[in-house]
């Protein structure tokens, strides 16, 4: 704790000592009439136009007036603590001191360089808003505030990372969210002690309950409208500076199968698509495994003519079905990874050409059967239908152990695998709420397996909003 002295020279010396090796730190002397000013700033962080226009110019024009009265900058605070001034300088503020005055003025002059708000790339929709979060936290908060103009909408600030001093914002709706969950989030964020934070990756790993689980337990979204929809269910949204993704918690397993478009289309249509996604979950998890167990253990499970078709395609194949499936699934994974990593114009061509060429050649050379190619393609497609990328990757990875088990024990192995998965899902928790609950009553089915009509969802989900559950009172009041 260094005491602030009234002499600018001493303050300057303090700063100079502290930032001796920083080439971009500036301590500018400014003598106007009788008074001696000092400006401290990093010239890489400040917007020099602002400094000239709103600090230097007014000071020159009104040499006699109080600093507070002439400097026309909104973000303007006074302090007597040097540490605070140091941190402010690092955030891009300009620190101003008048010789003889025992205080520092912290003036917000930071340079805002940011992307413009563009359309979401990872969560495409046909209907609905086309705004996506960007890396700048203030802009993201502005987007959220504009979507929810309510006094109930609370934004709390956090600073995490001993070195990086990353700014985080926790958002929730006061009258809906369960206070204990908000407190739990607060507790977990406060207890994070780390040198720098990478959102959402680090956050996810640091605040999840079960450390060793493939399943994503926090929902990551880049869409403000989606964040709003979850806020309205009593959930908490965490956004961090430097990351165009907001984290939604606590979410259940079913949230990963919801897309924001479900709420723009008619309820029947979106219900059907929701069910399709759940079917695809099973296909992506178990189809190769099922095929392997059928073709190598229980061919008599299928009708005779079907088995004959299968056998004829397997006639000249050298490898056992399990190995075929493994090879094809690996191939698919390699193609996916390649297309993600490569530059986009090249990537797509490689994907298409590679897929077609490899697929046809592999079949013609009798390395892999026709059926297996179909199965692998279907499995891959099914996994990509799942809206959340993390979830679809988890499902794809889990299909390997399923394959191994059914290669060893046939259908029984597959049943064993599914049981283990269900038990694991039931044991997971997020923020003290169960992660997976089989929909067992009508109210639980309403926004999980299907998307019930808006006028029918009178209650918010129980877990996150137990106190204030009524969502709507008389939505179709026009109809007597």
């Amino acid at each position, binding site marked *: 704790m260094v005491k602030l002295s009234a002499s600018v020279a001493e303050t300057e010396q303090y700063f100079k000592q502290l930032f001796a090796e920083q080439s971009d730190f500036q301590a500018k002397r400014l003598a106007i009439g009788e008074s001696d000013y000092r400006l401290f700033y990093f010239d890489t962080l400040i917007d020099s136009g602002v400094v000239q226009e709103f600090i230097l110019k007014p000071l020159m024009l009104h040499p006699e007036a109080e600093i507070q009265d002439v400097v026309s900058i909104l973000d303007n605070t006074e302090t007597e603590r040097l540490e605070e001034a140091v941190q402010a300088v690092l955030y891009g503020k300009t620190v101003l001191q008048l010789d003889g005055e025992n205080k520092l003025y912290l003036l917000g002059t930071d340079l805002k360089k940011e992307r413009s708000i563009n359309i979401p790339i990872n969560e495409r929709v046909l209907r609905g808003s086309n705004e996506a979060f960007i890396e700048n936290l203030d802009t993201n908060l502005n987007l959220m505030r504009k979507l929810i103009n309510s006094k109930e909408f609370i934004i709390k600030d956090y600073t995490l990372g001993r070195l990086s001093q990353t700014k985080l914002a926790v958002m929730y709706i006061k009258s809906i969210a369960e206070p204990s969950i908000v407190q739990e989030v607060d507790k977990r964020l406060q207890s994070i002690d780390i040198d720098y934070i990478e959102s959402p990756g680090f956050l996810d790993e640091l605040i999840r309950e079960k450390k060793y689980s493939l399943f994503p337990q926090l929902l990551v979204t880049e869409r403000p409208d989606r964040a709003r929809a979850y806020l309205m269910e009593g959930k908490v949204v965490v956004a961090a500076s430097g990351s165009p993704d907001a984290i939604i918690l606590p979410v259940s397993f079913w949230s990963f199968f919801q897309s924001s478009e479900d709420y723009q289309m008619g309820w029947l249509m979106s219900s059907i698509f929701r069910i399709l996604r759940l079917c695809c979950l099973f296909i992506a998890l178990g189809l190769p495994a099922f095929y392997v167990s059928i073709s190598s253990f229980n061919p008599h*499970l299928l009708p005779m003519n079907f088995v004959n078709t299968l056998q004829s395609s397997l006639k000249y194949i050298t490898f056992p079905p399990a190995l075929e499936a493994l090879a094809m699934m690996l191939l698919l994974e390699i193609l996916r990874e390649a297309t993600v990593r490569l530059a986009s114009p090249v990537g797509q061509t490689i994907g298409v050409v590679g897929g077609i060429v490899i697929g046809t050649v592999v079949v013609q050379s009798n390395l892999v059967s026709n059926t297996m190619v179909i199965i692998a393609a279907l499995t891959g497609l099914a996994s990509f239908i799942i809206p959340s990328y993390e979830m679809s990757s988890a499902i794809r990875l889990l299909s390997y152990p399923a394959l191994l088990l059914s290669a060893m024990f046939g*259908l*029984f192995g597959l049943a064993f695998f599914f049981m283990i998965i269900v038990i694991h899902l*039931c044991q997971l928790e997020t923020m003290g709420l169960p992660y*997976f609950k*089989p929909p*067992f009553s009508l109210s639980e089915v309403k926004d999980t397996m299907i998307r019930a009509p808006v006028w029918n969802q009178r209650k918010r989900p129980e877990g996150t909003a137990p106190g204030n559950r009524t969502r709507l009172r008389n939505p179709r009041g026009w109809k007597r």
Partner: protein
Amino acid sequence: MSKEEVITGRQLFTLIFMSQIGLEVLSLPHVEASIAGHDTWLAILLSGLAAQAGIMLLWWLGSRYPARNFFAYSATIVGRPLGAFVNLLYGCYYTLSGYVLIMLYIDILNRWIFILTPRWVLVLMMVIICGYAATSSLRKLANITQSFMILPLIGFLLIVFSGVYGIDARNLLPILPGGWNPVVKGAYTAFTAYVGYDLLMYAYPYVQTKSKKRLLAAMTLANACTMVYYVAVCLICSMSFSLKQLTLIPEPIVYVLKNYRLAVVQSIDILFLTFYVSIIGSTVFVYFFMAAKAFMHLRGRGLGNQMMWIWLIAGACFIGGFFLKKRSALLGLANIQDQLSIIMVVALPVILLVISGLRGVGRSKL
């Protein structure tokens, strides 16, 4: 009481139903054929009523100590050393029940699907599933059983639809040829099919219903569903086969399923036996869970943690899987377990209830 342990009436229903439905679906018609003959369904109805009486008994016992589970208040009734002994008995009984059930199911698998697979591998798989599930709290256990709930329903539909072909109601006639005597005997044998409702001994204080009558209603409903399930299976078996056939075939319902062919699936029996693992599993992990809880209450302030006990029990079952090579020995043990379950689930609670009534230590709100 932690939030972790509290379950709703609906969850209690699933837990009880899933732990009641067990292997008897496959074996009961065969076992009963030589006892109650064609009146098996009557015998099952009777034993269902008996199980209802048993449920009332446990409910009554539980309502005397509404704030604690059975293993916690057993010491209050009969004193500390005896109470510990009672808990030990229950722990061993549940471990044995889980073990016998696993072995019986694997015996069936060995005969139908895995002709050449070494038995210990299957035992290991079963033990892993059941042990893993049983490490959870009561609420998570309820969630797991709710997830599996759809399978017995599918199984029921399969059985009913496949049974509709080739049944002859005249197979049931004459009703009661030998008077009520064989039926009552059969009811005694069939009673073990309903065992599983004893989970109430542990779960009673953790169920959150509007009233204690609601709790009883959930139990009754579960018991009724179990009864319907068994009766349907037995009726279909009795109507499809003659008595002589039933005494020879160990799992008649599988043959019924084998006969039935869909356009897309040809041998439903394999599918049925495969997903039956979830139904057996839910019964076994409830047993493991109860066993662990019983062992944990050996001491007033608790002994060990659930994780440790569960894996000890599971390990014991796995090691047990290397023994009992002969089918006759296994059936003998299963018989002993049947007798034991009547003692443990009916007789002992009655004795405890009587003692508790005499000592008048009930109504303690500890």
